[in-house]
């Protein structure tokens, strides 16, 4: 259910047009879905994540986020090897709704392809593209 809260667009992550975010943390990149995405999906009831060790390219589907409305593929915003997945989401998928940029993270990628970061958007660009309807 939409909380009617303001959608947040933190500045310390980069965004893909398919609504995933990446945060660089030393050698590792952390990946999740944006606040806009969780709000549009509604109550998330199931998250399917890849096996640790898989290597994926930017744009590859890495899992599924399922809400009461729809099951949506989620895509790698950057290429790299899956170093960890957020196992806590198995029992508490709603964490993605309540804390999309924090405890609701999906993946840790190490090593990751740093060149892919340049193709992602900063918060202002992502926000303006959503507000103009260019991406939805």
């Amino acid at each position, binding site marked *: 259910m939409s909380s009617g809260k303001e959608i947040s667009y933190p500045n310390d992550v980069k965004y893909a047009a398919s609504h995933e975010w990446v945060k660089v943390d030393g050698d590792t990149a952390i990946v999740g879905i944006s606040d806009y995405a969780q709000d549009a999906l509604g109550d998330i009831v199931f998250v399917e994540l890849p096996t640790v060790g898989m290597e994926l390219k930017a744009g590859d589907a890495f899992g599924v986020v399922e809400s009461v*409305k729809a099951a949506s593929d989620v895509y790698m915003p950057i290429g790299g090897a899956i170093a960890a997945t957020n196992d806590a989401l198995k029992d508490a998928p*709603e964490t993605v709704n309540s804390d999309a940029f924090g405890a609701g993270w999906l993946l840790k990628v190490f090593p990751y392809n740093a060149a892919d970061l340049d193709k992602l958007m900063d918060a202002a660009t992502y926000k303006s593209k959503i507000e103009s309807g260019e991406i*939805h």
Partner: protein
Amino acid sequence: MSIVANKPEPLLYEMSNPGTIGYSLPACDVPITQLPNHLMRDDLRLPEVSETDVVRHFTRLSQKNYCVDLGIYPLGSCTMKYNPKINEEAIRLMGMSSVHPMQTAETAQGAMQLMYDLQNYLGEISGMPAVTLQPAAGAQGELVGILIIRAYHLSRGDIARNEVLIPDSAHGTNPATSAMAGYKVVEVKSDARGNMDLDDLRAKVSNKTAGIMFTNPNTLGLFEEHVREVNQIIHDAGGLVYGDGANLNAIIGIARPGDLGFDVMHSNLHKTFSIPHGGGGPGSGPVMARADLAQFLPSPIVGKNGDEYVFENPAHSIGRIKSFWGNFLALVRAYTYIRSYGKEHLKEIAEVAVLNANYLLALIRDVYDPQIPERECKHEFVLNGTRFKKEYGVTTLDVAKRIIDYGFYPPTIYFPLIVPECLMIEPTETQSKASLDEFADALLKIAQEARDNPKLLRDAPHDTPVTRLDDVKAAREPVLRYEHA
């Protein structure tokens, strides 16, 4: 509505009264043998009820059921049209209901003639002469179609094609079908007029493209304005065009997919040709293909040898996909439907379906927001509920739930996925003007309620045996097995 309709109906288990017996068996006339202990269980606790308990239970349940024989059933993308009763008379004719699948072809000539004629009718309607009636439903028809495309490429030694293009407005079965046939799915974006984005299509088509799966009219209820161009782009790249015939009901008798450049398609007989939907009986999803693809069709096909109808196996068939001869009684219903309209009148199905959808849209468009307001719709239309959510805090789910209180089945919601807060309405050609007016009136009243009293919508439905269900809890903590209290 029945006087009992609004009371919750208990489960048979809850009605169980120990010692009540609903049967009477004659004395056992064979030696009694005890089952081995490891096969015995004592945890089943079957309900103990009388015959009248059971009959009344299921009769009450049936009275709570909503069906198209009761009122408008505007599920977008589902085409809940009336199922003519003459179809049911036809399938009850002795030769239809009693023909046995193991009969020899010589003794089933009448049934085979019906199949042969239906193949020809569907070939004529689609503009694709090679037809199989075997697929058990639309989804299986899709798989058959994509396997035919795969067989076509492989037969030419063209083995490197491993991608299928699919627009982002597609039904979910399209990517599932492609993946099942071993292809990688490449998504093509829609543009601002609800067409396929041709630049994105050109960027994604390549010598790896086996084909495209393309629904026209699409799930936004819009006719693809560049249909010939899309198909040309795919053909120029060496791919084939698969037509998802889900929305054939919007163009039947007016445009033929074969003439528009489609190579293979399926038609869901429940959507365009009035057989009952899933719960009402087995489905059927015939596949039509252009003439040179006939060699790949699944076997058998009904052919004609002089005056005799015969089962034929195409030379390079993808094989059998269904036991026996398809879902025969579904074919009889579709045949009856086509014959009862007649060649001259089939196009009225599409004309009235499109008229009804545009009439309904015209009645509500000042209050609800069409996704693509500048275009007329085909047989269905989609509304965008973003403004309701922002201004009134009312979601499309809330609107849909409130529709139940007005005595109607709610439309499809949250599909297609590219439309936020989507409400998707398909009235079908079998609604009268009065029925459309009544439904539009309810939608307008609900919009007024959304402004004046949004809580009424958020808590809806109010007048049903059970009110708003907690679907989030049900999905997060599913209880998959009934446990006795």
